């Protein structure tokens, strides 16, 4: 039986700018029917490009492709467009990372799910509708009928991804290519999607090419893994080989970067409270169409942050973490309760490195801004302090003249931290500081924050949805759900014997079940 997929020294060159740029160098991949293969690498490693080439979606003429991609013996690169189209959507299907933008906003869900059938089969509309609803039920969507008639913006992130999978697998494809399907989702939803894909592989014998930058996820799903860096396949082998005895130095670095849960530094005893909130309630007026609803975001929250501590705040998106941070900073006025802060100018580090630096200003200007407004330091003093701070976060002085657009994600986040340090704050609130970064860079930034914590005695309020990072960084952890703090306690208690069911579920879906700590 010929292999399902045989890719041999595939090279992709990109001809948009003046000088052609090679993105993928002699990429080889073989897949058997029903096999699940992982493709791991950081952003810019060429993993998505290779996947798109396999799916035949790199048809733009400024993409030069050399080499062989054989699907069941037929070379996709040389066959005619119409032959390629017969495969797409019937034999080879693909799902993408951003569920919201990957669905057509102005078309109904049902219409988009059925499209595969409309193209490849000549079923009657009723039959197609029946098949579509069955496909939606297969991906565990309750009342598929309502979802069938609704629009993409009316569904949650997880639901939308399930719709994508339903649309892709409705034609029982032989190969499903999943390009980082779970990155934009919450932890709990992430594990559900992975389970779903396992079920599809088992029942429909669909081979899956799973692309991701999250090694732990890949290890849970795939049998074989290819590690890519800078367009080259650095190493490939079974999951066990790669994890137990990585041959390549880069692979080892990748594995180390996964936050360990084993670290057992002693818990820091806490000093007096730095800042606190006393039964805070915050609600927004959300105008849904004609009627106005009062959405209750924070429900009587009280907490204290002690000096010299890193307090973790864990919860899924939409549970009110960011609102809590903004209320603590005074950016939002709570309906009831009050906020107390012993020391002035507590600072904040934001999640999206691209939105947190003013694109029209130089790094130096941004860093000196707090001094310019709140202190009467002379320009020379300001420059000296910013030079000191920029070097403290590991960047050279000449970065001060650069614009944010010239920096990488990691560098930008370092600049944010440096700016936060300018006023010598006692407390810094970090709202998901590393979740937008690649794993390796994530590790470096976390190491920097820990160093600052130790050396300058700055305490952090660390907000994240990634339980592993929280475990590595924080002493005390609070778990939030729908605007309420459901459980709080020191690290050992939360991870060893969580009491609240929601905390248990969070730990299980992050692969940190109370049993073994992976």
């Amino acid at each position, binding site marked *: 039986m010929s292999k399902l997929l045989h890719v041999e020294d595939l090279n992709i060159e990109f001809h948009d700018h003046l000088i052609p740029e090679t993105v993928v160098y002699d990429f080889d991949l073989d897949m058997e029917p029903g096999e699940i293969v992982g493709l791991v690498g950081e952003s810019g490693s060429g993993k998505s490009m290779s996947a798109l080439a396999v799916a035949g979606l790199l048809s733009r003429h400024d993409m030069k492709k050399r080499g062989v991609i054989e699907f069941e013996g037929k070379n996709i690169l040389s066959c005619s467009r119409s032959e390629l189209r017969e495969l797409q959507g019937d034999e080879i299907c693909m799902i993408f990372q951003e569920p919201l933008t990957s669905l057509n906003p102005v078309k109904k869900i049902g219409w988009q799910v059925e499209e595969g059938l409309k193209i490849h089969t000549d079923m009657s509309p009723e039959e197609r509708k029946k098949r579509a609803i069955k496909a939606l039920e297969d991906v565990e969507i309750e009342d598929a009928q309502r979802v069938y008639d609704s629009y993409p913006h009316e569904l949650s992130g997880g639901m939308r991804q399930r719709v994508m999978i339903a649309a892709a697998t409705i034609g029982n494809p032989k190969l499903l290519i999943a390009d980082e399907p779970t990155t934009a989702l919450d932890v709990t939803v992430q594990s559900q999607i992975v389970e779903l894909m396992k079920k599809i592989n088992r029942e429909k014998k669909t081979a899956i090419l799973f692309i991701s930058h999250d090694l732990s996820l890949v290890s849970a799903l795939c049998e074989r893994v290819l590690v890519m860096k800078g367009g080259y396949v650095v190493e490939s082998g079974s999951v066990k080989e790669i994890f137990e005895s990585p041959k390549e130095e880069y692979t080892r670095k990748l594995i180390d970067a996964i936050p360990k849960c084993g670290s057992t530094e002693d818990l820091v005893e806490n000093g007096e409270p730095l800042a606190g909130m006393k039964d805070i309630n915050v609600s927004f007026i959300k105008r849904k169409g004609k009627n106005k609803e009062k959405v209750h975001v924070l429900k009587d929250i009280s907490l204290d942050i002690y000096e010299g501590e890193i307090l973790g705040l864990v919860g899924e998106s939409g549970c009110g973490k960011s609102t809590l941070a903004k209320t603590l900073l005074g950016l939002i006025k709570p309906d009831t309760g009050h906020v107390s802060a012993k020391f002035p100018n507590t*600072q904040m580090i934001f999640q999206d490195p691209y*939105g947190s630096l*003013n694109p029209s200003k130089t790094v130096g200007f941004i860093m000196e801004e707090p001094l310019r407004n709140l202190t009467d330091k002379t320009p020379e003093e300001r420059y000296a302090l910013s030079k000191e701070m920029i070097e403290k976060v590991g960047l050279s002085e000449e970065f001060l003249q650069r614009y944010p657009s010239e920096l990488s994600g990691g560098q930008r986040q370092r600049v944010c931290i440096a700016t936060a340090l300018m006023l010598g704050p006692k407390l810094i609130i970090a709202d998901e500081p590393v979740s937008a970064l690649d794993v390796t860079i994530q590790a470096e930034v976390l190491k920097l924050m820990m160093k600052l914590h130790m050396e300058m005695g700055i305490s952090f309020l660390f907000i994240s949805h990634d339980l592993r990072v929280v475990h590595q960084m924080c002493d005390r952890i609070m778990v939030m759900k729908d605007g309420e703090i459901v459980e709080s306690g020191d690290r050992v208690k939360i991870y060893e014997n969580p009491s609240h069911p929601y905390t248990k579920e969070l730990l299980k879906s992050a692969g940190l079940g109370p049993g073994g700590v992976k």
Partner: protein
Amino acid sequence: MRSKKRDFNFILGICLLAITLIPAFVGLFWTPYDPEKMDYSMKLAGISIRHIYGCDNFGRDVFSRIMSGSGITLLIAVGTVLFGSILGTVIGCFTGYYGGLIDECLMRINDVALAFPSLLLALVIVSLMGTGKYQVMLALGLAFIPSYARIVRGEYLRIKNLDYVKAAKLAGASDMRIMFVHILPNTKTVLFSSVLIGFNNAILAEAGLSFLGIGVQPPDASLGRMLSEAQAYMFTNPSYVLFTGCTIVMLILGFSLLSKAKRWQ
């Protein structure tokens, strides 16, 4: 981005502007003939080496008149755009940033301004303060404010929720500083292309007003007035109307190509 295409737009735009702006600029100081000197023998004379654009119904050299005329038209356009964009931007800032009551009533006034034909507004100002370049500038400037205000407001609504604005607040910047030091520079690209488009609309509007006889007063002429005068001699002396018309078209085409050039985005 197709790099070749951008240059194409940019180059064409620049040379069109060169053909129109250089004579306009030179026209401020020197013109081959005195734009107002009349010479009966040359009345409605066709194109000749001495008069490359021919002469008008007073025997005045059309090329010199276009030079000084386009100077005046550009002056009006610059004045209008400056007046309209500065005021429009300030209004846009406040309505976009603060929202609430100011936003509501200023937007109401905007709707009124859109519904109110700029023609009548121009006439009121011209009748009040007499005709002439500066009155036309004021009239058109006022008529342009709503469009700028709307554009700037949209930008402010978008930017004010971004993280770096919150960071600026945390850094103790006052509202005014945030509006003008932090947010305004980021609206540069949108403002710049809308200024160029505004420029074109100003030239068109001035030509419209002069066409209806309200704009610039004879004997000094803006392109619009010359075009309306030239129309009367369209049959016997088509060169007069065609050259004037084409100068306007080239001017506007040059600016719109420039605003299209991807160089700024």
